[in-house]
């Protein structure tokens, strides 16, 4: 099977896989795989023979990692899932991020309570990464509405960026041995100090592979009207860094809301970034009219992309890992909704079509060409 566009769709009731030939005219759906429990993270590992991974977050019997070696025709549990040492006192509550490492079978995994694990054997065994999991801040982080989750892992050689809700942005420059909080300019709306050292509710961080110094962040915004200690915090929700995450500046001007969950960078332009602004109270698009917003100048200005999307009475949420973009010459954007719709935005989001409209609530969407 050459040059297929593969989508992994993590839902409340297992993982689905959709694939299509490169023109992306028709997607075929397979699944659900797993025992009908939530899947919060998936990974399409294109290093060598493609492997698909999915977390299987079983509230009854604990967390599992599923692996497919036949491009999503079947999944099996790996031999082990991440687990804290017994003496640690913490117990795994969820698996939020699966990312490819540097070695062929090297995997990184972000979990709840916020901690990092690594596997050197494709997910059959896991080791806690103490530099962040036992960081001096770790026991001070607080859970957000989704739990205390490590949801973002971005690697760039020996530099590793992590996003934690609510912990903030942490960076390692020694391959993950040590980490430091790096949140200058990242606001928090739920603490008297609007710019704490750590503890921000970062929702997602994204980066272009060829521009590792440029990072984009969707932070927990929606605090423009705050009247308590510290005063209002407008525009803290959408941010950019041009110095490898050392400092961050708002790029939220021009958006209808600075609250949202996903943030995605165009595969061929580090200046092109996508967000989905949501009303902070309802977690749905302003006016019940869904739209993705795109900036083509690094967040300097924004355009609304909604052709083909519902024009009214649509109140779904798009969660932090439920939007992705493929890497074809003219990329398509994809997002999944909490109401079980999977949308594809052709031509970089210019024209939207609903691929599947009755899936379970969608947590996670990843795309790759294999």
């Amino acid at each position, binding site marked *: 099977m050459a040059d297929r566009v593969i989508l992994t769709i993590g839902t409340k009731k297992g993982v689905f896989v959709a694939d299509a030939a490169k023109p992306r005219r028709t997607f075929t759906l397979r699944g659900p795989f797993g025992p009908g429990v939530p899947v919060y993270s998936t990974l399409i590992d294109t290093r060598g023979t493609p492997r698909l991974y999915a977390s299987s977050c079983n509230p009854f*019997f*604990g967390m599992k990692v599923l692996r497919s070696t036949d491009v999503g025709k079947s999944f099996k549990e790996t031999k082990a899932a991440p687990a804290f040492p017994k003496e640690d*006192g*913490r117990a795994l509550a969820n698996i939020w991020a699966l990312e490819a490492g540097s070695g062929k079978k090297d995997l990184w995994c972000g979990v709840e309570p916020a901690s990092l694990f690594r596997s050197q054997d494709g997910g059959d065994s896991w080791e806690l990464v103490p530099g962040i999991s036992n960081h001096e801040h770790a026991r001070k982080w607080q859970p957000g509405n989704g739990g205390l989750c490590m949801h973002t892992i971005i690697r760039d050689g020996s530099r590793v960026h992590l996003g934690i809700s609510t912990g903030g942005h942490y960076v390692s420059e020694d391959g993950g041995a040590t980490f430091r909080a790096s949140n200058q300019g990242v606001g928090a709306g739920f603490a008297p100090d609007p710019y704490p050292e750590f503890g921000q509710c970062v929702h997602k961080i994204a980066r272009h592979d060829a521009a590792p110094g440029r990072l984009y962040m969707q932070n927990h915004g929606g605090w423009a009207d705050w009247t308590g200690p510290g005063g209002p915090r407008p525009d803290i929700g959408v941010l950019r860094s041009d110095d490898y995450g050392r400092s961050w500046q708002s790029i939220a001007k021009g958006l209808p809301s600075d609250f949202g969950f996903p943030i995605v960078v165009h595969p061929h332009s580090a200046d092109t970034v996508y967000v989905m602004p949501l009303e902070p109270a309802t977690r749905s698009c302003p006016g019940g009219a869904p739209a993705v917003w795109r900036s083509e100048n690094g967040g300097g200005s924004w355009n609304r992309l909604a052709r083909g999307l519902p024009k009214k009475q649509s109140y779904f949420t798009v969660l932090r890992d439920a939007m992705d973009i493929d890497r074809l010459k003219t990329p398509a954007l994809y997002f999944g909704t909490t109401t079980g719709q999977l949308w594809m935005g052709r031509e970089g989001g210019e024209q939207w079509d609903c691929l599947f409209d009755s899936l379970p609530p969608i947590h996670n969407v990843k795309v790759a060409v294999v």
Partner: protein
Amino acid sequence: MGPTPTITIHVPGPLRTYCGGAAQLSISAQTVRDALEDLQRSQAALYRNVCDETGKVRRHLNVFVNSDNVRDLNGVDTLLTAGDVVTILPAVSGG
């Protein structure tokens, strides 16, 4: 204390894949805690589905001795007698 009683653990369907397909396991244990520790040694994969890393029974599982939930008895320190049936069941929760 008398001889260690032999009891039966009834394994729910979704977990049988972790113990070679067995629906029941026969083990010797004085208490539910002993029974779980036996599982940890003899059926490690099954045990990881029943207890988390800290050794606690997972939050959404119920453990019964015969027809009584151990929460209404003496928890994992509930004493067992010969012929008891320990049943592990997912709690009815969610929607």
